[in-house]
């Protein structure tokens, strides 16, 4: 996939008026997450969780600081910080994840005779697609509809964790928190000097030069 915001690094804004002490503290905490740290998931669940995150939000292998998505979801579950709402067909946050990880691994074992993290990307995708379509029936799911779990819990938690990380912000040209400094030029196709410059095809160098000045 071509880099649409070449040379853009949102962390360059660290000492600009866009950030204050609070921003720096929050982002530093997020950048310091150990990708292998897990306080909620058990050692048995952890490889399954990492494999799921790698399939839902795959990251380029050459990325210097990939987003530690599984560890971020783990932190959310460890803190048990819910969203303030949930689909009533699903059990509470922690229980839903525990049950689902056990069920996903059980599906892999019953279908392919191996753990989920051992079956390879292609079969993992097949299994995740089956879950997305509700075409799984292992008794480990209990009364929890797999389809609903995929839509309302798995996608929601994994994708929000990914896009809360500066690595994802750089990818989509997002400027991070709009406070203390927000935006001035609100019209279509206008850009403040502290926003990422999107490359037009063939004009990557221009965007790269502009992105070097962001901050």
């Amino acid at each position, binding site marked *: 996939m071509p880099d649409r915001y070449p040379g853009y690094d949102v962390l360059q804004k660290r000492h600009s*008026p866009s950030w*204050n002490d609070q921003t720096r503290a929050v982002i530093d905490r997020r950048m310091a997450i150990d990708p292998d740290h897990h306080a909620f998931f058990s050692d048995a669940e952890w490889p399954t969780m990492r494999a799921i995150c790698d399939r839902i939000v795959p990251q380029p292998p050459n990325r210097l600081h990939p987003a530690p998505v599984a560890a971020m979801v783990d932190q959310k579950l460890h803190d048990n910080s819910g969203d303030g709402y949930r689909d009533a067909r699903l059990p509470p946050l922690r229980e839903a994840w525990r049950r689902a990880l056990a069920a996903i691994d059980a599906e892999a074992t019953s279908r392919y005779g191996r753990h989920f993290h051992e079956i390879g990307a292609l079969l993992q995708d097949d299994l995740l697609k089956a879950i997305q379509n509700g075409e799984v029936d292992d008794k480990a799911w209990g009364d929890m509809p797999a389809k609903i779990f995929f839509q309302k819990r798995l996608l929601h938690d994994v994708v929000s964790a990914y896009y809360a990380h500066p690595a994802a912000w750089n990818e989509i040209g997002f400027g991070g928190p709009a*406070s203390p*400094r*927000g935006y*001035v030029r609100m019209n279509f196709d206008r*850009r403040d*000097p502290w926003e990422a410059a999107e490359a037009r095809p063939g004009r990557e160098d221009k965007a790269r030069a502009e992105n070097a000045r962001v901050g």
Partner: protein
Amino acid sequence: MRRADAALDFAANAALIGAAVLLVLRPRLVARAANSPLLPKARDLAVAGARALVPPAPPPLSWHVSTARQLSRLIASYSPTRIATARALTKRAGRRLNGSSALLAFSVLADSAVEHYRGSFANRAMYTPLVTSALTLGGSLFGMADARPKKHTVRDTIYAAAAATGFAGLCFHAYNVLKRPGGASWNNLFYAAPIGAPMALALAGLLGRGAERVRDVPPRQRPTILGMPAGRALAAVAAGGLFGTVGEAALLHFRGAFQNPAMVLPVTVPPVAAALLGAAALRPNRQTNRLARWWLRFTALLGLGGVGFHIFGVSRAMGGWRNWSQNVLNGPPLPAPPSFSGLALAGLAALSLIEDETDA
């Protein structure tokens, strides 16, 4: 429709840029065009219109009173001290008008630089007011320093260009408002190109033209503009300009919800000053003139104090002055309030001309 818009855009841009380039490279050509025979015809029409608006002359005095007065005036007008005082007064008024033009031009230069930078100079024509207001500022400062009681062709031409740019800018800004979804809605009047802003440049040009007329008066004559006594004409321009600027301040301070009580001042003080100036132009008398003078002085001070209030306003936005790159652009415009000062100073100069016109 879009193609027609683009063609219109292109033609207007080309004309404006061409005018700016011509003004720099061939000022004489522009001066000659400004003196073409077409202009006097248009001017005669405007004069006829303006005459229709001027109140009728007072009834004639009885013949012996008027003859005696005319005789004494005629004799007095030949007195050398009187000639010298009159010339000094018009010259001084002319230089003061140059000064008010300079202040307006400075305000426009700074304001259009900031606001058009904010607009990313999306339209090339957005550079035009920077060029013309910088020229106007330079010409006006030269006019203030220039003690010769004569008009200066280059200055006069620059002022004409400033007035033309101001009126063209008005059209551009109106087009910018109207082309947005919703057209002339409150939202667009608040957030699209400000309708009133280019008028400050037009006023700088008009007052500058007035300055050049006023300072170039043959002995024993009074300055006139478009056939009207210069003091009255300039008072009308200054009062009209003040009312227009009040409209702009009212719109934007309403947008700001008058959240600071001081935001009421620029929509209450200048209208009184403008009304008194208008009254002094129509029916000058000692008391009206004095009142008008004080209110105009107050307005001039208010324009300078407004910058202080706007500096405070920027500091109150999220991040304050440390976040200047957002707050100077999004906060209250720092260079806007001196427009009031420029117009008030022009009003004061016009007032002294009116007094000279009427006390004889």
